């Protein structure tokens, strides 16, 4: 979090400029970068960002509001890092998306940021974090019983996550497991990290580490889990948390008979792989295994799935390409409609909200809601 543009120079200089970062794996070779899909140009690739960094370092361009807007126009979907092995080999701890975060932090330092980010910035400045803890009153009573994991319900920014948490609480009730929700600052810092709002982040992380250390914690939001697992230890080197994702938790419960599928009518579902659960945490099969264990559920894959999944556009905050967030979600919805499935299931509340902007909300489910309905 002390990184500057200068730290990116080596990585930027090894970019081959061949646009590999915009595409998914062979042989399908789908375009996965939302920017590139909209505007096929070297500029709108991960490499384009790296070349922009070089141009900034060499004084070929100034860090302006346009540059900041461009920096926030990346969705951070990680597909570039998954598909370019060159940059990761030079700066594995940063990668392309990490480099874009550094660019954002530089913009923030100069006071340049798009309006949605400025609002978060102001909130952090006044409150110290960007937390939306779920049921704060309930959290005060929370206590881990040592057998079940704490549920991480801190960054509840989306309606999709609220619905998933409510469903999860019901599921825990069905299993007879006492819910133990962890309530501390109400923010893990993942959003602040992704948006380059790094000023107060180290102290937030240090504080959260005290609450999380050595506990078993179940995450519903893959962004939070990715951040806590991968980044906290960089700030607090001896930090260790036993992290599990809700899809792993539910899969175990269904496999071990702690949750019993109910007989229900047939339904055809399509599954959207959230970027940070899939590319970030490598969980592609667990949600599919859950669906396969539920009665009457037929999975129909969308064209771009698993490692080739396409982003929902939820984290595009810039407007360098107008309506990019909206068009990215629309593109994903279009792909889903092509499957002819009845329901779209996913495992991230942000995706639920983002896709729900352009689709009948009643036909979108967080996988936790879906399991609750069918057990």
């Amino acid at each position, binding site marked *: 979090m002390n990184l500057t543009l200068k730290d990116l120079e080596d990585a930027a200089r090894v*970019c081959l400029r061949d646009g590999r970062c915009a595409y998914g794996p062979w042989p399908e070779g789908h375009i996965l970068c939302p920017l590139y899909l909209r505007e*096929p140009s070297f500029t709108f690739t991960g490499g384009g960002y790296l070349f922009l960094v070089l141009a900034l370092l060499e004084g070929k361009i100034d860090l302006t509001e346009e540059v900041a807007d461009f920096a926030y126009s990346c969705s951070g979907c990680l597909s570039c890092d998954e598909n370019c092995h060159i940059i990761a080999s030079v700066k594995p701890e940063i990668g392309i998306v990490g480099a874009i975060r550094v660019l954002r932090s530089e913009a923030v330092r100069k006071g340049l940021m798009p309006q949605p980010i400025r609002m978060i910035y102001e909130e952090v400045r006044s409150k110290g974090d960007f937390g939306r803890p779920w049921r704060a009153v309930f959290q005060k009573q929370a206590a881990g019983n040592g057998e079940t994991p704490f549920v991480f319900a801190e960054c509840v920014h989306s309606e999709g996550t609220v619905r998933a948490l409510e469903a999860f609480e019901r599921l825990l009730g069905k299993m007879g497991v006492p819910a133990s929700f962890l309530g501390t600052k109400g923010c893990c810092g993942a959003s602040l990290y992704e948006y380059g709002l790094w000023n107060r982040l180290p102290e937030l992380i240090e504080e959260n580490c005290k609450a999380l250390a050595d506990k078993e914690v179940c995450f519903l939001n893959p962004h939070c889990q990715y951040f806590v697992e991968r980044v906290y230890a960089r700030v607090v080197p001896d930090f260790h948390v036993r992290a599990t994702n809700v899809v792993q938790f539910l899969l175990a419960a269904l496999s071990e008979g702690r949750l019993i599928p109910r007989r229900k009518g047939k339904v055809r579902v399509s599954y959207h792989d959230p970027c940070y659960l899939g590319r970030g945490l490598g969980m592609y099969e667990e949600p599919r295994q859950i669906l396969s264990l539920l009665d009457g559920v037929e999975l129909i894959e969308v064209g771009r799935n698993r490692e080739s999944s396409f982003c929902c556009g939820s984290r595009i905050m810039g407007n360098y390409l107008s309506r990019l967030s909206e068009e990215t979600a629309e593109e994903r919805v279009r792909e889903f409609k092509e499957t002819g499935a009845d329901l779209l299931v996913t495992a991230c509340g942000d995706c639920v909200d983002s896709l729900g902007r352009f689709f009948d909300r009643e036909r979108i489910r967080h996988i936790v809601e879906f399991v609750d309905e069918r057990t």
Partner: protein
Amino acid sequence: MTLKEELAERIGPGKVRDDEITLVTYGRICHGFDHMAPFRRPSLVVFPETRQDVCETLKIANVYKVPVTVVGTAPIMAGTTEGGIILDQRRRDKILEINTDAGYAVVEPGVTFDKLMAALKGTGFKCSVGTMPGSATVLGQALSRGSQSFSTRYLSLVLDLEVVLPDGTVFTTGSSHFDGVGSHLRYGPFPDMAGLFTCGYGAFGVVTKAAIRIHPVNQVYKVHFAGFDRYADSVEYVKAIVGNNIPEHAVIWNWHMYLTWPLSPSDLRSWLPLVLNSDVRRPPEGVPYNLVTSFLSGYEEVVEVYEKVCDRVARSLKGIVLSEEEMARRFPHTLSGFRDQYGMYPRHREAVHWCKGRFVGFYAFAAPKDIKEVERFAVDEFSGFGSAINPVNYYSHPFDFGRSFLLRIGGFPDPRETELRGKMLERIEQMQEKALREFGAVPIRPLGMWGKVGPFMDVLRRIKGALDPNNILGRDSGLFDRGSR
């Protein structure tokens, strides 16, 4: 009306960009072989989506006398021109035809090897590949006449080109210039015009479509491995088997390259230390200096015989034969990499070495007896730079049934070592001169060679003057010295 406005009006505003971010990111679009290449900010970047867009762009550029540089995704050699237009053809990426009767594919300029290979899956055909990453464009490779498999038999991938001249004229070079005829034949009753646009580096016209050779996947295919301690023996072996029509193609790899090139990035980290600290001239005990891969294919009975012939010829030339089992035991990564290379061609390839450093290389074509001298000379020269440039990779293979051999050798110095890289580039220029003078070795690119080809350049300049009187195309592409013509 400005140039941009006029262009936007003719071809559509979404295809013309002049925002600062686009201009600075295209300021060094020239391929990453050398990040020290000068920064040249274009005035516009144009993304044609149709042939007509290309025609209109060239017509307007001609009126304004603005230089135009054409790129597929990232040009290997061509430099761009300060203040010029970059014509980025990546949006033209359709595979227009796969003709499995005559064996050709018609592609637009933005089609990548990954895309073509994927489209060919299940058709019973494959395309020729080199050591470039799969995201390289087929036309980039074909038009720069890079090294690739099948060059043993064919010197070029190209059968037929569609070209737009600087004044907007459109024509085709091969059999398709007859109305209603397909692209199966490069040579008709007229001169072979495709030759003018291969290694023309975009200075004569803009290629908007090409028919390229594809090859049938035979009933059986197998890679034969033979190891040699001397390059001269490897060349004799390849000459013998190619001369007797045995392999589809054959490649000689040096040990630095065959041990590291086929690896994935994670494997590279485990293998590279051995190579990084070694002298390329002296492989460790039990590691052959060269590995020759011969791609054998055909009917089952024939391939069995081919294998036996390769075994016999290799042994008669002091070589050893490495069975698949032995390769799997001794060089598992190499075997796995070659299986990919000759099987499905995934995306790791030479690009893996870029994780270690920037490529600086020397290329030469020479007659078989001379290429042996060139190799000794080049390996000594590269060793002189020390281990900082390891791995010192080379591959070498015959062209045109062995009439000529290519040697391509390169090192991978750290990108930050600008002084070392500068010295290497300077020395390589001297090496090209010496190799030409002493061994009759022909370079692969024209840089620095303009004064050594007699009246040829004058003829080329006259053609350029006739086709492009305002010198708008490929002005800094390197075909002509310092942007002249």
